């Protein structure tokens, strides 16, 4: 049962991490253009070097 002292905080921390990730994605407009983002990685425009 002593394990709970570690396990519960860890599970809460991991869950909060996921929630924080979702917030970050929402704030940084990752959901503005779902169709376009799905297509964009198919282009080879910046394959040689990253976009300046």
């Amino acid at each position, binding site marked *: *049962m002593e394990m*709970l002292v570690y396990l*519960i905080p860890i*599970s*809460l921390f991991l*869950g*909060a991490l*996921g*929630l924080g990730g*979702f*917030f970050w994605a*929402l704030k940084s407009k990752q959901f*503005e*253009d*779902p*169709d*376009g983002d799905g*297509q*964009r990685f*198919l*282009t080879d*425009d910046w394959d040689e070097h990253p976009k300046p």
Partner: protein
Amino acid sequence: MTMAEISRPAACPACSVAGSAEDLAAQSAPTEARFLLSLPTAHCAACISAVERALNTQPGVHEARVNLTLKRVAVDADPNIAPDTLINVLNGIGYEAHELDAATLSATATDRAGRDILMRMAVAGFAMMNVMLLSVAVWSGAADATRDLFHWISAAIALPTIVFSAQPFFRHAMQALRVGRLNMDVPISLAILLAGAMSLYETTQSGHHAYFDAALSLTFFLLMGRYLDHRTRAVARSAAEELAALEVPRAIRIGEHGEETVAIAELTVGDIVHVKPGARVPVDGVVTHGQSEIDRSMLTGESLPVFAGEGAVLSTGEVNLTGPLELQVTAAGEDSSLHRMAELVAVAETSKNRYTSLADRAAQIYAPGVHLLALFAFIGWLWYAGDLRLALNIAVAVLIITCPCALGLAVPAVTTAASGRLFKKGMLIKHPTALERLAEVDTVVFDKTGTLTLGAPQPTNLGDHPRRVLEIALALASASAHPLADALSKAAREAGIKPAKVHDVTEVPGHGIQATLADQQIRFGRAAWVGADAGAQTAAWLRIGKNAPVEFTFADSLRPGAQAAIQGLLKQGMTVQLISGDAPGPVADLASRLGITKWRAEALPDDKAQLVQALSDQGHRVLMVGDGLNDTAALAAAHASVSPATALDAARVASDIVLLGADIAPMSGAVTTARKATRRIRENFGIAAAYNAVAVPIALLGFATPLAAALAMSLSSITVSINALRLK
């Protein structure tokens, strides 16, 4: 002809309007540095790179980014770049593009409300999953100190979450209570708050049952319903706003320094405005210079163009057909006819908001019922067992178990499914209760010009004329962009007629075209100008020398699917009526062609609204279908209303449903879908009631546990959602 010009009518019916906006934009010197262009044909990764590469290589363009979901490209550029050059660049590489009015769209640029609900939903989901894990441990036998610990941790997660995530419900409940009404959010808020408070108290007393997980899953599921509801409306709203944004509100003002393009809002009374042929009249005004013909079908329904010379009074929304006009502004801003129309629409909105939806009606029965039941349980147990804590526990259990989790999903799940289905067929459901009202309709009133017809004339008596006459007529007609001349030359060319050789072809704006042929003067145009007596039908006249004038008659071409739509509606047992501002001849002709027995011609805008009102007073539920300013009052007065995408903005705003394609046939299917959707909503209420019939006695008898509440809640929510999906 460029590719974009060919594909324009098919791809986007609203672009007949955009044409004039682009003409204006051609001479513009925009002040803003950010443009939005609509890209209706973009669909793939190659489209994105092609468009972005083409625009980014343009001098003056800082950055262009395509949004494929919205089919738009946002361009940041120097202020002196005209959107028209960018549109030409895109047309050059084969993409259709139209300028969008950024001011109209800014309202939906960031969907704040949607993001807000999504955020609250994510928090509720996170908290629900964690608390559920702890609750499972309690249900499977954790006891004493462990159970208390788990309850305390649950409380620490659940209480802040409730405060944050359930706010929308608390806010709506407060709004309803403040005006002395009960809505669905009142029992929801009460159940969530009491469950939280009661569970906290039980935890301090090391009680066995805590309902933290129930309070959280209730919040989560209900927020899901809210979000679905919001999404459906946001999609419709942004599509509707894009239609509006295609009409960039600009006018060409003739100032001291020549012509300048300004926003319509900047015009003041007394300004002189230039209206090009083919453009829409931007303000109310009096013609000071020039002659032309005016198409006022949007305002009055008349299909015959009207002559406009100096001193003629023009209203906003009319289309200038042949010659350039200069107009002195007589009303701008709040006095303009367009603004008066907008006020009318605002009145209509409130009258439609007064309609009580099925959900509201259910809430009015449900909310007091639940509260009385909980009170009854509390008093009953207090009297029977004499234990305040036990009685309160049971009363809260009753509130939680009866809480309308399924009811909260019952309506949004169905309307989302139905709206999605209709959207695929090209119909935009704009109003939240539009489907329910559409399902109740028993009478349909159609407008003629622009609704059942395309507003584009077709020659009807080409076969009556000798070939030589047709050749001469074609020679003259092909010199003009007037809709009648255009239709005649198209039809004649299709019939294999070659234009005759004529000389000195000149267009006399507002009258017609003249030329000479072997020293004879030929005129083709309005009856009076040619020297003939005008008939009732839409016609153009040809006079060769001193011969008697020859008449070319025209009839409006039918909108595709009009026949199918009316047959479908009649088959469903609806009464179909036709009311138009046009002359009796064309109206009677169209009515007999479509099998409509009841029709009325030469109706004024007030007549249309009065007809709808009279039918409503007789107990009929009227569906109004119209497109012009003259239909707006009737659209607003009707029980439900539909307008095509080519309709004027005011008409589109006044209607509940907008048809996105040129085809009107899906309309009869919409009524069927709406009826099915309403049936599903009722079924969902039935499911929720049946589940309550089982659960309530258990809760009343004091056998309800948090586990039973969690199971019942999830089960009923899933059943309701699946039933909604059956609509597809």
